[in-house]
């Protein structure tokens, strides 16, 4: 049995999505900027897709910009706003648990003269709203805080974050790459100015993302060229990819969330019942339906991951050994988790294609592997 539990890294493209895309390779292949009918058909597909994404945020079509993925969306939002507002102020607030696309965008802005505040998080990876309020100065132009964390699934209270930003007249960007289609954001109700999303995390194709930009938000272009995407993002539009992205949004339903929540509980409870010395990292509530992150004490994550891989179970780890920087997950460390426990963390991320049988198989497979690795561990 092949069990893919790394849906936080990327997902299988839903066969219905790739089927929908097929036509846009060999039939509707025009350039959406072209005046002829080939171009018109491409433009129509683009418009319809944009509307689908806009609807998912209760937003206007013109507030959606297609990009090449979550990373580009984050870069465009953060650098775009910072550079547009640099005469207004030079202070940006983010958190210690953001995705590298956000953290490194901020780091690169530091070199341009911006000052960044990295908010702390508590043991469950929640930020402290008071610290946020206290960090705001007259120079603050942007707050960028992720909706749901990619490693431990913590869902931040973005309504209240947004309200604080709005009260202080500060632009609020949220990286919703992990939460999109799993936790709704109604832009008419939640005060948020920019939202990053990515197709390949929701069973759409890789290489496509989008950025919601509330009407009137100041933004400097990142990539210059033609005046595509309302002159915010240049480059011939990736029609097949965009159509696939929209289809993947169309295919997601509230039932999928319920299903995943059940499987999540099954996996957490199953592991904790059958394997001692395991700790759930991150909260039990206000957690993404798809994310389970567990530290297996006394063993190291990469070894566990590789043993699971030999049994055809795919997971990821927050262990240093899996990163090129040779440091354990910055998220787990920010949560105050001890390094040796961070090393033993495994992230299981499920999807709407995950089955109960796969979860059973995973629990059954884990037990002897963990025992074997513990038997050779000097820590146990």
């Amino acid at each position, binding site marked *: 049995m092949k069990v893919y539990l790394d849906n936080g890294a990327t997902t299988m493209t839903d066969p219905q999505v790739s089927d929908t895309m097929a036509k846009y390779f060999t039939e509707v292949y025009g350039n959406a900027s072209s005046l002829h009918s080939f171009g018109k058909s491409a433009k129509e597909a683009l418009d319809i897709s944009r509307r689908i994404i806009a609807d998912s945020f209760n937003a206007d079509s013109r507030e959606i910009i297609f990009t090449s993925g979550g990373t580009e969306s984050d870069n465009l939002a953060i650098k775009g706003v910072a550079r547009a507002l640099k005469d207004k102020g030079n202070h940006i607030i983010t958190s210690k648990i953001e995705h590298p696309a956000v953290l490194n965008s901020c780091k690169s802005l530091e070199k341009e003269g911006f000052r960044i505040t990295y908010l702390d998080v508590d043991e469950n990876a929640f930020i402290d709203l008071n610290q946020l309020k206290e960090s705001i100065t007259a120079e603050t132009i942007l707050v960028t805080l992720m909706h749901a964390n990619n490693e431990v699934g913590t869902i931040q209270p973005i309504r209240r974050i947004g309200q604080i930003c709005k009260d202080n007249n500060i632009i609020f960007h949220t990286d919703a790459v992990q939460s999109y289609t799993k936790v709704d954001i109604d832009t008419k109700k939640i005060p948020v100015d920019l939202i990053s999303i990515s197709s390949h995390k929701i069973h759409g194709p890789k290489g496509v993302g989008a950025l919601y930009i509330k009407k009137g938000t100041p933004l400097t272009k990142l990539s210059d060229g033609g005046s595509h995407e309302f002159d915010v993002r240049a480059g011939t539009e990736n029609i097949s990819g965009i159509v696939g992205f929209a289809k993947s949004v169309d295919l997601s339903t509230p039932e999928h969330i319920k299903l995943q929540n059940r499987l999540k509980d099954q996996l957490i409870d199953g592991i904790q019942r059958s394997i001692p010395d395991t700790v759930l990292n991150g909260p039990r509530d206000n957690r993404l339906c798809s994310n389970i992150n567990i530290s297996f004490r006394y063993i190291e994550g990469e*070894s566990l991951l590789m043993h699971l891989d030999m049994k055809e179970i795919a997971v990821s780890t927050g262990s240093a050994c899996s990163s090129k920087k040779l440091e354990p997950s910055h998220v787990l460390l920010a949560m105050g988790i001890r390094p040796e426990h961070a090393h033993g963390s495994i992230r299981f991320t499920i999807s709407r294609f995950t089955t109960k049988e796969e979860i059973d198989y995973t629990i059954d497979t884990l037990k002897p592997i963990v025992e074997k690795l513990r038997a050779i*561990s000097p820590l146990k």
Partner: protein
Amino acid sequence: MMDDYNEKVIDNFRNPKNMGSMDNPDAEGEVGNPTCGDIMKVFLKIDNNIIKDIKVKTFGCVAAIATSSKMTELALGKTLEEAKDLTRDMVAKELGGLPAQKMHCSNLSVEALHKAIDNYQKKHMTKEHTTD
């Protein structure tokens, strides 16, 4: 440049030799620390200056386990002096190479071996002194 583990490394990881603990070892040596994510503890049985038995306990990644195992195979049967001449590079070479970033952090078992031997030789010298 190599980014990935080769087959030999994976094989040694999958079926590591001489892993676990030992009753009444003649010497022990430990290196690493929990923060960096690799800890190896070596146990030795020494008879007539020769490593008669060796075990290792390893907390660490694929490379850490594979190099630990390979180290025990290289050390077993050697004299203490020969064993002290073993290097990380020799272990890595026996495994057909390691990814660059794994060379320094996870390939520590030789150090644990050397520590165990040092401990043994110190104890032994002390003993000689006291019984002298």
